[in-house]
């Protein structure tokens, strides 16, 4: 009887402890997957945003637009040959 108790009790305790650990790790896993999918969503959204900003930048940086803004709004023009100073080393 005594030796049964000696083997059985630790086993019983072990079973209960591991069972609780399984629950625990399961819960941890769930939490992590929720976190993962949240981060994935965030990553996707940031990527979308990045793509949109890249497009916007490309549209705003179109050479034809820069040219138009420079000439029409900023009144810029190429210097005539008389306005060019050539520096020689």
């Amino acid at each position: 009887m005594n030796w049964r108790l000696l083997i059985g009790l630790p086993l019983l305790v072990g079973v209960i402890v591991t069972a609780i650990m399984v629950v625990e790790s399961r819960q941890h896993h769930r939490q992590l997957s929720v976190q993962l999918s949240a981060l994935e969503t965030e990553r996707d959204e940031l990527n979308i945003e990045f793509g949109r900003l890249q497009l916007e930048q490309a549209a705003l940086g179109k050479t034809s637009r820069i040219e138009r803004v420079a000439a029409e709004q900023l009144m810029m023009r190429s210097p005539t040959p008389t306005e060019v100073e050539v520096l020689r080393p």
Partner: protein
Amino acid sequence: MSVRRSPPRRPQAGQRGPNLRGRLQVLSVFLGIAGFILVAKAAEMQLWRSEFYQAKGDARFVREIEIPTSRGMITDRNGEPLAISTPVESIWASPRELLKNPERMGELAAALQLPLEEVKARVEARAERDFVYLRRRLTPDQSEPVMALKIPGVYSAREYQRFYPLGDVAAHVLGYTNIDDQGQEGLELAFNDWLIGKPGAKRVIKDRLGRVVENVELVRAAEPGRTLELSIDRRLQHLVYRELQKALVENSATSASGVVLDVATGEILAMVNLPSYNPNVLDSVPAARRNRAVTDVFEPGSVIKAFTVAAALETGRVMPDTIIETSPGYMPLANHVVRDIRNFGTLTVTGLLTKSSNIAATKLALDMPNEHLHDVLHRFGFGELSGSGFPGEQAGVLSAPQGWGVVEKATISYGYGLSTTVLQLAQAYAAIGNGGVWMPATFVHGGAGEGRAAIDPQLAKTLLGMLETVTGPQGSAQRAGVAGYRVAGKTGTSRRSVAGGYEKRYISVFAGLVPASQPRYAMALMINDPDPKQYYGGLVAAPVFGRVMADALRVLDVPPDNVEQLLAAAPAVPAAEADALTLEAESVAEPLDALRPAAEPVPLQGAR
């Protein structure tokens, strides 16, 4: 009786024992068998056929879902985006589920901004199926209200759409993709394997309503498409586009193409075709989508004379200052007449290029073996693919020298009877500027291939100097000049070939190199069918070169190699004078009437 009656009563207790034991035995045997069956069944399910049952179970709730990935970006040589994929939402429905709630169709159609009839028709046409697209490629802003309705059987799937920020400026080079993100034309097609990503997959557990309950495992991670860095320079591309567009309108031409190459590496810095199309909205006619600079061949006319001269100089029988007699401006040749635009009198070999004399070119060609002229042209890449790998690229026609009669040889010497693309022409001129080394063309930044020596470096240098006279004060292409820079180049004007002959319509061509002291950029351009009143290459095509390069050299920070001219502060050429000069100096290479265009095989002797 009582005795006989009593024994059964007494042994009742005694009999109850064996009886109980018997029942217990029966029961335990029964339970034992049942237990055995259970264990056996469990063993069968767990050990024997576990895979089968696992698969059956998985099939009911484990789903493998695709992780979509985007197509790689295409950038120019400075990393500026030329093609970007951005995510969009496609709304799809399961008709079987959706049709259980037909009363919500109106709501759905309104949110989709589609007519109700159309939505109904589309869903009902596939009533027994589980999948139908309702609307593809909505922006997240558009798709949100649809999904917010939470109509059973309506889902959204992420897809990627391609955007081309440059629009029509680089349309032909980049090409486009279809709705499934596969390259259809241009570099999108040529580099499709490089650009497409590999969609990943993950295994998830879904509940009855199709919601993901748990991620089981990642089957394979999504591999996003790789970025493709082109050799194209966005700024140059725009400059070429702008100036060609201007020339197209001014000359009421039907089409135009231009290519700028990096001389040392053969990288294509700009490639423009007009008319163009907007690749973001595909409703153009397919003909406008052709990249004419590599797919359309034409007879280049006088620009070929540079290579005739190279061949002549290579034989050692003439020098740049050897005198050629071109009087009286026409020359009978086997039932035909070769003409110059006027009588140039005696010309040097350099003068041949400066004035673009057909007679002098013919005389040089007749003085060398067919094979030699063919060999030189072939070394410069005529009749051979450029190496760019562009889909649908043409090699042009350079017929075998054994078949050339005097007439073919004469016409080839000034650019008829052979055909080329604009890219090949730019490449051939780049070889002159690259010390005689012909480089295969490439669209990829840093993708330079192995070059091959076309002519001796010394000869290339001599030729370059001779070509510089073309944009000089006596030359036919002064308008190609760029203030502060030395320019070498050659004009060409050729009659367009049609089936069976040539028409009274023209192609104006210019090919040139800057800065001539140490060429860095080669450009060839072709303007197809300009206004017949003014079709000379020197007037139509050369100014485009000059204007593109004036801006390009500034943008690219190339130091001027002709500072004296800049200091003199004189405009390169007074405009009014230029008209008179160019008109006179330009010589149109007239095809011999009876000759067939290069597109058809030229028969022996060709005298028809």
